[in-house]
């Protein structure tokens, strides 16, 4: 049976190891401390990226020049995209909550390769540093958008190399994390935890791990080719050297489409943990949720072409990609239906994390449905590269992964910090944030349908109203998020002490003290029952 730790074990926060002070953190191989290192760095970059987003919205509030020049605007959305995608949402849930909780949830003392784990954090920091360096050196910041499309990325005078190399190093970090998790799950599950007794968050990390491992090298080599083409003038994608710019797009999206499932799968995992806990009810259709995670990861590998519908691919390719795009929506549908069914006949404890989960479901559906509109050929021809796409991916990336991230933050906060936060402020912040979110990105759908292209510094007068609404929404949302973050930070000091199981969760992390001791478990638990056993 499960043993409760005695109080003699120091928590991982108080533990005094070989190194003191800051070195106790940046040289620690404890998966929990590494998780917090990631949390801190990711949140910092998120705030930078988000502030740039807000500045872009200020610029777009009126046609013509409002606060920044076109050059700055182009550099801004490039940096915003690179930071948000490569440095925030791709590592996001796996690196923070995966690192912290995966070993605990499967009953292990650490990940399989603790030192590699620390190394991947260093890669992460190096990568982001390179991206930031590209902003201040050379002939001005990169201005290609996060997609680095050829041949523009060879023409621009912007300082591409450090940015490309930074993205490459970030990819390395992502591969190492995925590899580590895969081995951990294969080798270190507690005795008795068969595959189908594993909680759903580890399951999604497992599916994500494969995508990270098998998709990231493709972008790695693509970025290397871009660098080689810029420096050595090897012809790969530049039409003047005989290359094919569309091949670049193929390779880029061969990674970057699976990457969107790297972002969303762990988010779905976190939601699958939150819902049963607050419903006090076992999850509906466990096997189907597991299978759908695998299906998303697998099918998601073959639909990259839906980003290239207007580029002039062959009809056969268009047919295949569009069809498979619709197929990949099915496993997501299965998940949504199972989550909602879990709420049926439950006994729901209405706490902040549950509200985030409900919010997630709502915006994820909007984002997903707008994805269907884009997956259909006739409609994508019109909507491609308009603000409709921008709305789609903010709804599903920020609305999906972002909401799940904040949900997970509120869910595991007591476990990680040992403190409770103030729920009232957390809920107020959520409501303000949600209002701002819907206004900000909702307006973009209509702008896109009217035909406003994306990456536009300046726009036609007919798009003015929509942009005003959208920009106002951004300010509201910014305010809401500030409330949420300030509340969480303030609770570190003022919060009351958290019990080991504040929400009545049943997975392993709730069986050990908050915050967890260094070794997680005194004795490795032996598993006999499924993960969400509320009987």
């Amino acid at each position: 049976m499960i043993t409760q730790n005695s109080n003699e074990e120091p928590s991982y926060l108080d533990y005094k190891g070989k190194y003191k002070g800051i070195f106790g953190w940046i040289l620690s191989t404890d998966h929990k401390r590494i998780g917090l290192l990631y949390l801190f760095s990711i949140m910092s970059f998120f705030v930078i990226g988000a502030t740039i987003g807000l500045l872009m919205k200020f610029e777009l509030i009126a046609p013509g020049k409002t606060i920044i020049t076109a050059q700055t605007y182009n550099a801004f959305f490039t940096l915003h995209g690179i930071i948000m995608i490569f440095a925030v949402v791709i590592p996001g849930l796996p690196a923070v909550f995966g690192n912290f909780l995966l070993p605990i949830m499967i009953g292990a003392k650490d990940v399989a390769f603790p030192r590699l784990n620390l190394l991947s954090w260093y890669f992460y920091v190096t990568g982001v540093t390179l991206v930031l360096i590209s902003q201040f050196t050379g002939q001005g910041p990169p201005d290609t958008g996060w997609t680095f499309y050829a041949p523009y990325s060879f023409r621009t005078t912007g300082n591409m190399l450090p940015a490309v190399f930074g993205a490459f190093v970030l990819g390395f970090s992502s591969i190492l994390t995925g590899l580590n998790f895969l081995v951990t799950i294969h080798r270190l599950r507690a005795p008795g935890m068969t595959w189908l007794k594993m909680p759903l968050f580890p399951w999604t990390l497992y599916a994500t791990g494969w995508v990270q491992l098998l998709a990231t090298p493709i972008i790695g080599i693509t970025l290397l080719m871009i660098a080689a083409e810029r420096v050595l003038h090897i012809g790969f994608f530049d039409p003047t050297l005989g290359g094919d710019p569309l091949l670049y797009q193929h390779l880029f999206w061969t990674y970057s489409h699976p990457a969107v499932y790297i972002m969303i799968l762990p988010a779905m995992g976190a939601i699958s943990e939150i819902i049963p806990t607050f419903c006090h009810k076992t999850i509906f259709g466990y096997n189907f949720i597991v299978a759908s995670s695998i299906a998303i990861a697998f099918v998601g590998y073959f639909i990259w072409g839906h980003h290239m519908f207007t580029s002039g691919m062959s009809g056969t390719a268009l047919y295949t990609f569009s069809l498979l795009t619709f197929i990949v929506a099915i496993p997501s549908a299965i998940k949504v239906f199972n989550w909602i069914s879990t709420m049926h006949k439950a006994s729901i404890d209405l706490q902040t994390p549950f509200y985030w989960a409900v919010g997630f479901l709502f915006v994820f559906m909007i984002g997903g449905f707008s994805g269907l509109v884009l997956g259909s050929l006739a409609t994508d021809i019109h909507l491609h590269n308009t603000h409709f796409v921008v709305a789609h991916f903010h709804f599903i990336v920020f609305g999906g992964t972002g909401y799940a991230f904040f949900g997970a933050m509120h869910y595991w906060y007591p476990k990680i910090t040992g403190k409770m936060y103030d729920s009232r402020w957390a809920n107020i912040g959520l409501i303000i944030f949600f209002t701002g979110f819907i206004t900000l990105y909702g307006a973009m759908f209509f702008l896109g349908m009217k035909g406003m292209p994306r990456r536009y510094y300046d726009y036609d007068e007919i798009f003015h109203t929509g942009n005003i609404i959208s920009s106002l929404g951004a300010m509201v949302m910014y305010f809401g998020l500030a409330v949420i973050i300030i509340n969480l930070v303030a609770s570190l000091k003022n919060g009351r002490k958290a019990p080991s199981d504040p929400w009545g969760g049943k997975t392993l992390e709730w069986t050990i003290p908050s915050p967890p001791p260094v070794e997680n478990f005194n004795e490795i638990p032996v598993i006999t029952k499924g993960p969400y056993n509320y009987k």
Partner: protein
Amino acid sequence: MYSTTGIEASNYVSTYNTAFYFIAGVSLLLLFGLTIAMLYFVFRYNKKRNPVATQIEGNTILEITWTIIPVLLALFMFHLGWAGWKPTTKPPKDAMNITVIARMWSFLFVYENGKQSPDLIVPLNTPVKVNLVSLDVIHSLFIPEFRIKSDIVPGRQKFMWFMPEMEGKYKIFCAEYCGLQHSYMHSTVNVMSQEKFKVWFAESAKPIAVAGNAPGAVGEAIMRAQGCFACHTPDGTKLIGPSYLNLFGSQQVVIRDSKEVTVTVDPEYVKRSILDPNADITKGFPSNLMQSYRSTLSDDDILKIIEYLKTLNDK
């Protein structure tokens, strides 16, 4: 609620609408249905109303149902999209041929009789086939009202076609990010009645005949049509290329075969700058940005341009 005007300005609008309304309609229905179900559960089964949860592991029949129904819906959605897209590949045989030359950051439309225009002028109810040519990077020709868009990829033969079904002027945007002035790379499509179009088409092959007779006016009009002002200004502001202000007759340091050379901006040099811009790169400016205008400018045009440049010297 949606779209700018709700008019059917081209042959694609109705198929687009069918696909869009079906997908959006089903989506909204599902969104409302599922959200209401969710909110009802939250209300009905919260801890106060339902203190003890009923444990339900799952239900295979339900799972199968809610897999199959979305599959069928999704396949139908796919079908509508495919059916709406299919016609874009098959231009009618009698379609009128126009070539668009896209470069940073302007469109130039060239007609079969050699006529050039920065705006796309087309006759009503006539199929138009636009051959897509890009001289530098990827651009995209996007006419929102027509619900059509196609990327213009350098080094590839491609076309798009459509049939304008409503007279009027509509916006053209460049929809693929192409650098600094991407958001200023726009134009207009002007759909005329067939009679009016015939008159326009038969007018002098050059569009600039009516520029006026102030010195340099024709040159300026030519340059406007060719999109020179996307990169060069007449007032001394540095954009992407050197400003034209006091350019003619001045001394310039240029880089020729990676050596610095000082040249005088005389007609010969201007001509070379326009026809072979990468031979001499003005110091401090990027190479390979300006592309040759050999295909669209004649010697005579260049003389007119020089005439215009001269007028910018006394300011």
